[in-house]
């Protein structure tokens, strides 16, 4: 996960749960072993946990122990809240959302919300997480209560991994303003038609 690359030298094995445990283990396995393991559907025995397999782990992983309870700040370094939980996709083992308790910021009452995991970034100092979302955007997000109703997330996502929507946490597309146009694509600005590659408000990101 590139968002953790600011943790140089830090290597901790994700000890999340069964799902992410499998993910970590698959990362650790050489390709041949991985496919053999997947095809046979065998669970590893204790004898499979050899030091060789552990040394094959690539990249930087963080334990939930490290992450949970971390301060969440905005890009200006102001406190936003703290990370309470992670939500996983049990099929892929990927962390999908972070559950963040926010409050006491610009008069906003404390509440727990769910944000896309890729909206959170490890701060450069490695001591907190950064949520690049304005309080105004967070304010209307319904509070999350475990087991009560759907999980609501902000309509947009922030950065690359973000896969974003249109702007950082600001969704531009309004179906009520939809229309159909017909015409010709132009080539030059002064003629009308041109196609160009310019900045794109959205995402790029993580699961590219």
């Amino acid at each position, binding site marked *: 996960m590139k968002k953790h690359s600011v943790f140089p030298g830090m290597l901790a094995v994700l000890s999340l749960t069964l799902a992410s445990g499998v993910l970590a283990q698959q990362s650790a396995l050489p390709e041949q072993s991985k496919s053999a393991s997947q095809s046979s559907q065998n669970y590893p025995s204790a004898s499979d946990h050899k030091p060789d397999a552990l040394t094959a782990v690539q990249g930087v992983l963080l334990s939930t122990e490290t992450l949970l309870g971390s301060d969440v700040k905005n890009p200006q370094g102001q406190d936003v809240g703290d990370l309470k939980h992670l939500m996983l996709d049990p099929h892929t083992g990927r962390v999908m959302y972070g559950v963040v308790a926010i409050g006491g910021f610009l008069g906003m009452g404390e509440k727990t919300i769910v944000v896309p995991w890729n909206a959170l970034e490890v701060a450069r100092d490695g001591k907190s997480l950064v949520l690049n979302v304005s309080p105004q955007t967070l304010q209307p997000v319904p509070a999350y209560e475990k087991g009560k109703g759907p999980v609501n997330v902000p309509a947009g*996502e922030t950065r690359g991994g973000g896969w974003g929507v249109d702007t950082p946490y600001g969704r*531009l*597309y309004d179906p009520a303003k*939809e*229309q159909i*146009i017909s015409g*010709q694509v132009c080539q030059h600005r002064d003629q009308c038609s041109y*196609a160009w*590659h310019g900045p794109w408000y959205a995402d790029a990101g993580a699961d590219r």
Partner: protein
Amino acid sequence: MPGMAPGMQMLVQTDDGKNTRVQVGPTWYLERQDLDVKENTRVQITGAQAEIDGQPVLLAREVQFDGQLLTLRDMQGMPMWSSVRRAATK
């Protein structure tokens, strides 16, 4: 700026003579769609008006051209490249 990646816009001269900037999508996504809209191609675009950097643009949801239909967003406007959308439809 965080959250920005190269993307594609088109300028379309509509049948009533107006020029409309159309925000199509991020380049990395369009490259996967085998999209090849050439200049002077006739297009029909369904999208929503929005404003970016003070400029009016049309955020494309569907682009039809040469008998092809490229769907870029769902009916609510959530981009096909959004992980939020993908997660919701899994």
